[in-house]
């Protein structure tokens, strides 16, 4: 079929569609590390982040997206993390953030 070019294309929706998203990997991660659910979204991890100081990297947003089944680009984003461990020191909910980084990267693979 010939695809016509009208000078614009259909913008992709930014909506997170929880029905279409496959939550298998997300559930796998939560099973291994239930404490990740305890995140209250305070953002101190991102605020203290060494990589976040140098880039747009936002750890809180990344793991939240993963929990919603939005995996695309997360592996690449998480590769910005230097694993220095500051976030773990400041997390008010005692989440083992470094494990979260490694676990998500391991579970998602290069997605």
């Amino acid at each position: 079929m010939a695809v016509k070019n009208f000078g614009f294309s259909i913008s992709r929706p930014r909506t997170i569609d929880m029905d279409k998203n496959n939550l298998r990997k997300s559930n796998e991660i939560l099973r291994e590390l239930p404490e990740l659910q305890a995140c209250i979204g305070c953002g101190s991890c991102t605020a203290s982040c060494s990589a976040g100081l140098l880039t747009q990297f936002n750890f809180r947003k990344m793991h939240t997206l993963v929990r919603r089944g939005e995996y695309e680009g997360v592996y690449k984003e998480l590769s910005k993390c230097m694993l220095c461990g500051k976030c773990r020191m400041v997390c008010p909910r005692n989440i083992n953030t470094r494990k979260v980084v490694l676990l998500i990267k391991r579970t998602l693979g290069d997605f």
Partner: protein
Amino acid sequence: MIYLAPFTYPFIIGAAFMFLIVVWKYAMWFIDLPKEDVQKIKKGIFSKATLYSVWEIFRESLLHVRIFKRSLPLGYMHCSLALGWFMLIVVGWIETIVYLGNSFVPLYGHVFFRFFAAPVLTEHFWILDFLMDFFLLIVLSGVFLAWIKRFSSRLVGIRRTTKHVLTDRLAMSFLWFVFPLRLLSETVTASIYGGGGFLTGSLGELFAAFLPSQLLSSLLMPFWWCYSISLGGFFCFMPFSRYMHIFTEIPLILLRNWTLRPTLDEKSYDKFEIQACSRCGICIDECQLQKVLGIENVQSVYFLRDKRYHMLRLATAQNCLMCGRCQQVCPVGINLNTLRLSTRAIMRNIPSEQRYNYFNGIDRSCGEGRVGYFAGCMTHLTPKIKISMEKIFKAAGEDVWYADSEGSVCCGRPLMLSGETDAARKMIKFNEELFRKHKITTLVTSCPICFRVFTEQYNLEGITVLHHTQYIASILRSGRIALSPEECSYVYHDPCELGRGCGVYDEPREVISRAANLMECSQNREHALCCGGSLSNFVIDDFQQQKIASSVVEHLLLSGAERIATACPLCRKTLSRATERRVMDIAEIVSERLT
């Protein structure tokens, strides 16, 4: 003498099998050694190192001096089995020479000498009989202790004994039977033909007195059969069990003295280290994860076991504080931390070209000077340390270039600890270039984690790398700053990375004693405890970290000190969470006492 008896076949087959396997294994490992290692061997083989190794082999493989130092009963157990068995072989050899002169005796002729010799021997050398029985008794006492250890390890001086896998259990079961069966076989032989020393001879007389001779004659062959089978069985399983360490420790000692070391990349030398582990279990007791948290199955002994049998799980490899306490006490001297790191690298090192491209052009440093100060990520969470260092620099009149005052690229060690070595090397390269660009001659850091990677992995030729305690000690000595001591007592907590990691024990103590009263706790220096906050452990949760920290604080305060001093921002933060007492970095103490 005719050395032909079918019961020897199990032994012959077992011994031949073991010999072939062991030779084949060593050959493969040696062939796989990288070129540098082969060069080292060539250089070391005709040097004093080889002579020293012979002494070390005798001391550690036979006498087990290091284990003796740890625990007398445990040392005796290892020594009795190793030395006792060795002496049985040596004296057995002498025995055949004495009795038979220089005529050829096959291997099994030595081993089963009593069986072949008893019916034909007419005269006995009591001293040989005595020695053989004596060493048999020694070995038997060792076996007895090993039994006891299985039931109650505490009696042998360790709290936990190692859990084994199937081949180990099989080999161990055969081994347990070897010497009691030897005793029985020789006793029955002595009861029929006479002879034997104080043990087998006396027991033989006793048997002859109370048991019918017909029964004894019918028991003779079955006992020798069993003895041969247990020996053969043990030899069959030996190369696949932990008993491989019996032989492997010998080449390991040689190779180590020829300066071979494991590296972050896996190599053939690792196999010698892995298989030289006797699974004595000393590392289990030393491990705080076991002692405080009751976590089993992750300690070095299990790590090596799982790695050897290719059943290592990531969760095991990652559940380690890498404090180095086990390495400190390992009687075989295995480089446990390096092995764990290289293993993590095998499991998790994912090279990526694109990774950390954002480093390009980053330079958030400020100030100018020949001395560079790298606070480290963790120090940014303990700003007081940073401010104290700035104050100290100012007092010393030092011109300082602050490498990471507005954020920086991490030193790379935390990532390296996760196994992602290639990515960590990108950070290392970046920081090396940054330091060179600013032409510093001295690099001071407040974080032992950074300090360790700077000294171990960075190529900083021409730059002196100092931990801030070393720097402070040097400016104190040269009188560039002076302190007014306070009437307060501190106990010093040795950070793992600074102490066992880099061998810095004295400078922190020197600085503290100039500023206040220094007190010591019993587990200090090489035996210091880990605070629990280690970046090497990816498994334990914060609650468990805190539990370790509490136990450490408790131990530190047994010294009677009022406050706790340390030299690591991570230790300081972790310990602070566990106590109401003040936990201070040495830099803070110094900056408060500056005159």
